[in-house]
């Protein structure tokens, strides 16, 4: 039985279609990324999965429970962990009191282990918590009962880079231990590090479901090269080079202050083989080479067309 099965899920708010016939299945033991820009409808799907709102049409099952059936869903929630997009807790309670409440209702087998990883100040009131600490408390309560399925809405927002990295490692370990993880993000680089498969949502519609490697191959790298001299001869007409932009500056200064003469800056998005990329600049003197993950918005524009319904 698939931990999550979404079937033609549609949700309208008046004229706005937040989810439009979304269909996908998350398999047991995978980390599934739910990717899309802000406002794409990710939170709508997630809150429907948790039974917080009902679908206009279609439905979904989590751990076999239809999200429209409260009794079944309540039973399933014993084995589900959930972190909302902006988790909030009773501000007058301490972190410990909140974890005690969660323990009394769903168990807390993994409390000590999780507290060693994410360590919010348990004896302080939530009112005094920073955003990061609230997020840590949210992560702990999501995993504390050792759930089979964890649903996380933008889990790393509010975490500092060190914590993000710790979280990524943690999610991979969870996956290896058999937990199914479903999480949403609007940052491609975040999902690429931990996800096995990714669904991409835009304007409430599912555009594609891909293995993360396939997606990265298709999304490519943003490349910026600065090289000495006039680069007329750079051969950019090869596979995998998109939207090349070439600009030439004369009399530019190098970092050490020396005159570099003419400098050419080339930018493009590259989806081909890295060896080809290096080959393209053979014989040129490189001043700088910068490769970055292509921004998610560019990925959308490149592969899924702009202006079709935006």
């Amino acid at each position: 039985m698939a931990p999550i099965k979404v079937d033609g899920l549609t949700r309208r708010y008046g004229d706005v279609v937040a989810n439009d016939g979304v269909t996908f299945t998350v398999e047991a033991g995978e980390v599934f990324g739910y990717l899309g820009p802000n406002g794409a409808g990710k939170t709508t799907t997630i809150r429907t999965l948790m039974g917080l709102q009902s679908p206009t049409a279609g439905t979904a099952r989590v751990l076999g429970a239809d999200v429209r059936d409260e009794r079944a869903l309540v039973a399933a929630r014993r084995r589900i962990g959930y972190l909302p997009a902006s988790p909030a807790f009773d501000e007058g309670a301490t972190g410990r009191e909140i974890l005690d409440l969660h323990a009394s209702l769903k168990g807390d087998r993994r409390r000590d282990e999780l507290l060693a990883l994410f360590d919010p100040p348990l004896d302080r009131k939530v009112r005094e918590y920073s955003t990061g600490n609230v997020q840590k408390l949210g992560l702990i309560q999501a995993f504390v009962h050792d759930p089979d399925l964890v649903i996380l809405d933008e889990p790393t927002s509010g975490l500092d880079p060190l914590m993000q990295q710790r979280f990524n490692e943690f999610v991979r370990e969870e996956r290896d231990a058999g937990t199914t993880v479903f999480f949403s993000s609007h940052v491609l680089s975040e999902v690429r590090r931990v996800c096995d498969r990714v669904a991409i949502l835009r304007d409430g519609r599912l555009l594609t479901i891909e293995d993360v490697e396939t997606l990265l191959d298709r999304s490519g790298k943003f490349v910026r090269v600065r090289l000495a001299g006039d680069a007329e001869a750079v051969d950019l007409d090869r596979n995998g080079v998109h939207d090349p932009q070439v600009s030439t500056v004369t009399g530019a200064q190098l970092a050490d202050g020396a005159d570099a003469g003419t400098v050419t800056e080339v930018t493009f998005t590259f989806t081909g083989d890295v060896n080809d990329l290096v080959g393209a600049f053979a014989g040129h003197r490189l001043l700088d080479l910068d490769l970055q993950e292509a921004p998610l918005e560019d990925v959308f524009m490149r592969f899924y067309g702009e202006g079709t319904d935006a």
Partner: protein
Amino acid sequence: MLELARFEGRRKLKGALALAVGLSLLAAMDVWVFPSVTASGVDLEQFVEAYPPALRRMMGIEAFGSIEGFLASQLYVFAWLILLGLYLAYSAASLIADDVERGRMDVTLSLPVTRSRVVAEKYLTLLVPVLVVNAVTPVVVSVGVALVGESISLGRLIAVHALSVPYLLATGGIGLLASVAFDRASVAQRVAMGVTFGLYLAESVLAGTDYRQVGLLAPSRYYDPTAILVRGEYDLAGAAILLGMVAVLVGASALWFGRKDVQ
């Protein structure tokens, strides 16, 4: 069971104690001024006779020259029927709406609990202020009355507090329903207080008119501190009706919240 109620009820204890202290001070003041008011030689009964009958009824004025009549009007109609009634409506109005508005409900509803259980357990936390206030104040009143050399029937004093419990739970029920109906706590609070006070006014003003049936819906109709303290009449049927109102209001809130989207 009751994990949520215990968790939230604990946090209401401090506020309930503060409320009990405040109302005890008010009660002590009423008891303390009573001898000097009666000793001043003013014929209070005659003075309040000059009030229009509707106003006298509204303020529960009867046998105003006795400690029972004085406290019934000055303390129990004013502070219990009106102030505490409104406080319970106000306080209950944030039970659901505030959690929804601040996003706390998402986490609560990720727990393996039904929505109706969330509603019921949150409502139960209202018992904390209701019980604390009604446990502390009668002690202060009975000690105070003895200190000023007056006497009051202990049975009636206990009854006026005990029978206020269903009344206060009913105004809390109005607040709870508003809390489910509106997603913003401030709106729910205003509506709950407006409805509670409006029903009280309608009941008192319309009592002698052809429209008195409107008052049947008002919780204040079924709790009459003056009748209890001055005449020793305990309206147990009224208390049962109030508990029936509670059942209807909490049941309707639970059903409604069970069906609505949490935004």
